């Protein structure tokens, strides 16, 4: 008698437990969505506000929270494009030039270094690896002054060389690290089989490692694109002539100009300056998000 009773009690509690859990999960789920939607709206509001401001005449921009311009006005874009003494055609071309070369340099030189660290054996490898990881911690500001003096002596100031050449010398340890993580996941048997067939290390890199690590290369290329495109300090230090300016330097000129009635054009150009990054983000979202989780963890 007592045994049956106790069994049925437990059965009941287990069922109750499951139901209560489901109820609670549902309520929590709803709360969570409310929280997440509210947070994402607040997060994204400033960006949408900037888009809308780029279509508003100056007298409507401030003192209002509204996101919908009374009239859609493309004037800010055409005005902004030519608002500075040099047109934005030039600035976008400069930025593109620096960015494309930097991406190429980063991907080639960092994948070389990563291949050496991940796949080749040589004396002193561990020491170099430790030193490479240490450079991750060094702020750019510490090397900035001697690098500036070096480039000044080479006569490279006011050229793009100080911005591009370091990228061909695997300066971004972050990318090396990212690629090492990826290369290590590739089966070593591939290299060994190729070696037995008489492939040189270069051939192995080119014909096996490279094609198999396209996602890692793409991730490095995307981050390299975004960071170079947004870079401000490098161009600020090395470029002094307005016709050499990259887009971020040009944007800053809107702030230093006196008659501050240029808000609309300034926002319009700001929107155009982040448009390429935004598009890259939409297209390559998966790679970007996986890249962060991979370099961050494993």
């Amino acid at each position, binding site marked *: 008698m007592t045994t049956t009773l106790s069994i049925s009690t437990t059965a009941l509690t287990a069922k109750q437990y499951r139901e209560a859990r489901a109820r609670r999960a549902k309520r929590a789920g709803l709360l969570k969505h409310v929280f997440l939607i509210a947070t994402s709206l607040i997060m994204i509001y400033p960006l949408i506000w900037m888009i809308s401001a780029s279509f508003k005449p100056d007298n409507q921009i401030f003192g209002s929270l509204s996101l919908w311009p009374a009239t859609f006005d493309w004037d800010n874009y055409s005005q902004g494009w030519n608002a500075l003494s040099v047109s934005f055609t030039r600035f976008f071309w400069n930025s593109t030039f620096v960015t494309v070369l930097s991406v190429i340099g980063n991907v080639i030189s960092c994948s070389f270094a990563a291949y050496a660290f991940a796949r080749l054996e040589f004396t002193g490898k561990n020491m170099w690896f430790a030193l490479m990881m240490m450079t991750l911690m*060094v702020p750019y*500001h*510490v090397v900035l002054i001697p690098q500036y003096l070096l480039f000044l002596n080479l006569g490279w100031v006011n050229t793009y060389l100080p911005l591009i050449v370091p990228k061909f*010398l695997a300066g971004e340890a972050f990318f090396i690290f990212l690629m090492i993580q990826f290369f290590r996941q590739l089966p070593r048997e591939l290299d060994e089989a190729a070696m037995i067939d008489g492939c040189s290390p270069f051939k192995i890199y080119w014909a096996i490692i490279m094609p198999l690590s396209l996602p890692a290369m793409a991730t490095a290329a995307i981050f390299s694109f975004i960071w170079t495109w947004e870079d401000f300090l490098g161009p600020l230090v090395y470029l002094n002539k307005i016709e050499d300016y990259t887009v971020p330097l040009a944007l800053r000129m809107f702030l230093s100009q006196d008659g501050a009635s240029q808000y609309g054009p300034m926002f319009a150009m700001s929107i155009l300056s*982040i448009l390429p990054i935004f598009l890259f*983000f939409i297209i390559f979202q998966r790679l970007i998000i996986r890249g962060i989780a991979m370099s961050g963890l494993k």
Partner: protein
Amino acid sequence: MEKFFRRNFAGYAFLAPWLIGFFLLAIGPILASLYLSFTKYNIVRPPQWIGLDNYFYMFEFDDRFKKALQVTFTFVTISVPAKLIFALGVAMALDKGIRAIGWYRALFYLPSILGGSIAVAILWRQLFNYDGVVNSALRLVGLDGPYWLADPKYSLWTLIVLAVWQFGSPMLIFLAGLRAIPQELYEAAEIDAAGPVRKFFAITVPLLAPVIFFNLVLQMIEAFKSFSGAFIISGGSGAPLDSLLFFTVYLYDEAFSYLRMGYASALAWVLLLIIAAFTAIAFWTSKYWVHYENERG
């Protein structure tokens, strides 16, 4: 000898670009800036050895240096924990197969990817204008917002908010870490009638400790290095009243506005040592609160 050469040739050939960069652009400059930090140097005349004078001056007389330290420390100690707490909160809400996770993740990450740009720094200046969006929103609830950018009491908060707004990458890393916690632990805890708070402190925090630690170190270094936001929002000078004088902004100002390359190099070395010290402290304390799964005892 020939065998040694052949064994190492490929490795060093592939490493060559990095090695050149390492000597010319990393370790070389680090040592050069150490040397310059003991000199007086304005580019025009050759460096003049003055021993430790730069450092003495810095700690004895330089009020802007002290101000820069104070601003930077305040920024780091408020923005980093706030950002991590926010990132963890959102990551926990996103965990466990919520619907439309991809959308949320993308929306939350977007500010981080745009946040370093000058466009966003410019936007921030306008949001916190006296008649900008933030004060308009405050007026809706009947509050009269201050002059955020002109009042040194409030100006640093605009940059702290800007930093927290970019919580995307620690959030993604937390999300990956939360996925690795076995679900059974939570179920077992629930059967033992543990509430959400108890579950958070008894399961989530200890199992996530390595990830929290990783994010903490990374974000701390990032915060010490941050530059463009403060530079743009303060108009390049750390204004108002040096309340936005980040260490990096001060360094840039000394080096490139006043051409005091020796003094700026000394500042750079102080920054390097501060970051190294903070990282070391973080690693040292981590013994007491971070335990890795494959560890024994």
